[in-house]
């Protein structure tokens, strides 16, 4: 909404009115439709008249008295997306290699942070360095340029699809030989970075900094002892970086020039990937679950509740009462006397929120309450509350989830 608001600049308007103001001419020049030509005649440039309205149609402001276009500047949002300046590295003195996780074929937030860190190291160091991203297999990322990738080495081939750590490390070893990067940076992530990084470090005999979260060209601060200590050490060549180690690139575009390995690598993998095993969200231990749909005293239709959990792909939880009444097994109990959960999203259906229960969900980020009682403690705790019959809301949620799934399937097809 605020994008549409015309911001007035009283100063500019005042200058426009005051022909004796020293800036008056300069101000009028910018984008003015009328200029005095070299012969002294007034020239009219019809293209410069008016401005582009919110619907993309040109509008002419007939109220000339209100001054020139400067007074009615549009906010950034309404403007066309700005073309960011292109950052070029012609002949890099060295490379900083980043191996992004590419979760789902795209750069993750963590990957972007790592690339940001790579640029930070280049800025701090001497000479012109380029960030080289090594990506395995087919990818779906379209914005490598905006993420800060100067060079892209995309190693493709069927062999690299799926879980192939050995092949990937062999290829990275080849990268090491051919490009001798100044730094190796990987995200210290469960997704892939940690494993690939460790394997590579062991292979090329580098001692990595792990869980590094503040890195300059001299010093790296890493989390040690299971995240309970900070180790400050000289910045090594290979680093596994924690999330949010540096700001991602967002003000420049980069070249994304493709590179290739001179020699292809061929290694026989010993570890055989037999594919992902389907896991029922309900089989996930409660303490580990990311998304919990939890039922309490207010739930009457248990079949519907189970359906809802299945449709949403949530792990089921329960309040103590629901467990005591025999509607849910004991190991599903959430709370101080049950399991302490760490879910990011916790949906409490018909749970009024006993102290013990609230203690048990203390670490949850987003709590959503569906309850009939607006005064209950769970509603006070929740980020979003629906004061309604839980059955109706759950029925709607099931419908929405199924519709969403349908849509996804159609889009994929």
């Amino acid at each position: 909404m605020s994008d549409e608001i015309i911001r007035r600049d009283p100063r500019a308007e005042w200058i426009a009115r005051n022909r004796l103001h020293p800036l008056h001419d300069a101000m009028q020049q910018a984008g003015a439709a009328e200029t005095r030509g070299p012969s002294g005649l007034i020239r009219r440039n019809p293209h410069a008249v008016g401005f582009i309205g919110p619907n993309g149609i040109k509008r002419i402001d007939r109220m000339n008295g209100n001054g020139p276009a400067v007074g009615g500047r549009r906010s950034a949002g309404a403007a066309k997306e700005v073309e960011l300046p292109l950052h070029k590295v012609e002949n890099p003195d060295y490379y900083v290699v980043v191996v992004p996780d590419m979760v789902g074929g795209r750069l993750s937030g963590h990957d972007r942070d790592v690339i940001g860190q790579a640029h930070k190291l280049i800025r701090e160091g001497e000479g012109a360095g380029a960030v080289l991203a090594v990506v395995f297999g087919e990818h779906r990322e379209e914005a490598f340029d905006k993420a800060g990738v100067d060079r892209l080495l995309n190693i493709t081939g069927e062999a690299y699809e799926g879980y192939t750590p050995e092949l990937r490390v062999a290829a990275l070893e080849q990268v090491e030989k051919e490009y001798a990067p100044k730094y190796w940076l990987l995200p210290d992530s469960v997704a892939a970075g940690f494993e690939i990084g460790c394997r590579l470090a062991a292979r090329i005999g580098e001692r990595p900094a792990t869980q590094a979260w503040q890195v300059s060209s001299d010093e790296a601060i890493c989390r040690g002892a299971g995240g309970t200590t900070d180790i400050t050490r000289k910045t090594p060549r290979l680093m596994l970086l924690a999330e949010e180690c540096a700001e991602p690139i967002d003000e420049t575009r980069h070249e994304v020039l493709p590179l290739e390995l001179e020699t292809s690598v061929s290694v026989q993998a010993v570890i055989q990937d037999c594919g992902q095993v389907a896991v029922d969200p309900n089989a996930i231990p409660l303490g580990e679950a990311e998304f919990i749909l939890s039922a309490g005293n207010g739930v009457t239709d248990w079949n519907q509740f189970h359906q809802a959990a299945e449709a949403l792909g949530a792990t089921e939880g329960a309040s103590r009462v629901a467990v005591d009444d025999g509607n849910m097994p004991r190991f599903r109990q959430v709370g101080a006397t049950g399991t302490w959960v760490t879910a990011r999203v916790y949906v409490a259906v018909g749970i009024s929120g006993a102290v013990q229960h609230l203690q048990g969900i203390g670490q949850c980020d987003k709590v959503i309450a569906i309850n009939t009682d607006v005064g209950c403690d769970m509603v006070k705790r929740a980020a979003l509350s629906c004061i309604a019959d839980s059955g109706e809301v759950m029925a709607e949620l099931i419908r929405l989830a199924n519709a969403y799934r349908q849509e996804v399937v159609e889009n994929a097809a």
Partner: protein
Amino acid sequence: MQPDKQNANLRIAALVSVGKHPGSGRARRAEQDARAVEMGLAMAPQGLEVLHAGDPHAEALRAYAGMGLKKLRILQQGENADAVPALSQYLSETKPDIVLTGVRAESGESSGMMAYLLGEKLGMPVVTRIAEIVSIDNGQANLLQALPRGQRRALRVPLPFVASVDMAAATPRQSAFGPASRAEMEAKAADVEVLDEVQASWSEAPARKRPKRLKVVKAKTAADRFKAATAKSSGDGGKVLRDKPASEMAQAVFDLLLEEGVIR
């Protein structure tokens, strides 16, 4: 899995370290290492050797023994010694079929490199974050690897191999005081003791709290910045929907779920 005939001759080495409780900082049995021992006990209680490189008098080691071990093998070495040379030397002599470790130690550097360095030195394949050893047939092991959010991937790897055990593996059995206090700590000096010189140059301090990254909105106008700065607090203060059709409320809930990325 149940120990069966196939596993009778299986020899497993579980490497254990001294853990550290995240709250109190007190030494304890490390959670992942304990899972490694549990996995070993479940597969081959006879062929399991639990191995530690370091101080044989560390009390926390007793907690592993309390899981029902008759003895622990300890390669005695100084506090600042690197565990990898001693362990790889020992393991290259004993040649176990499976070497189990935790993913990351709870004390020290906790780099998580142990499994990989051993794999590299011993020339064994390394599998990461396993949740279960499903079966062993024809010299090949069928494993389940733990992926985030409770997902699993099936892997097949030939013996011998090194595996790091994830938190998703079976919870370790309770450590009982009686067996713990009676277990034998079979200590011998490590054959090789390499001082970790790199580590000596490091400085260590209790973890500082990391600032949470603010949602920096690079807005071009004051209005956008203002909106970005205020939008969060207004949306976070506990929105209450009432007296609206259920479909509308459900939509609001569903939108939030989508926004949080938990619907997949």
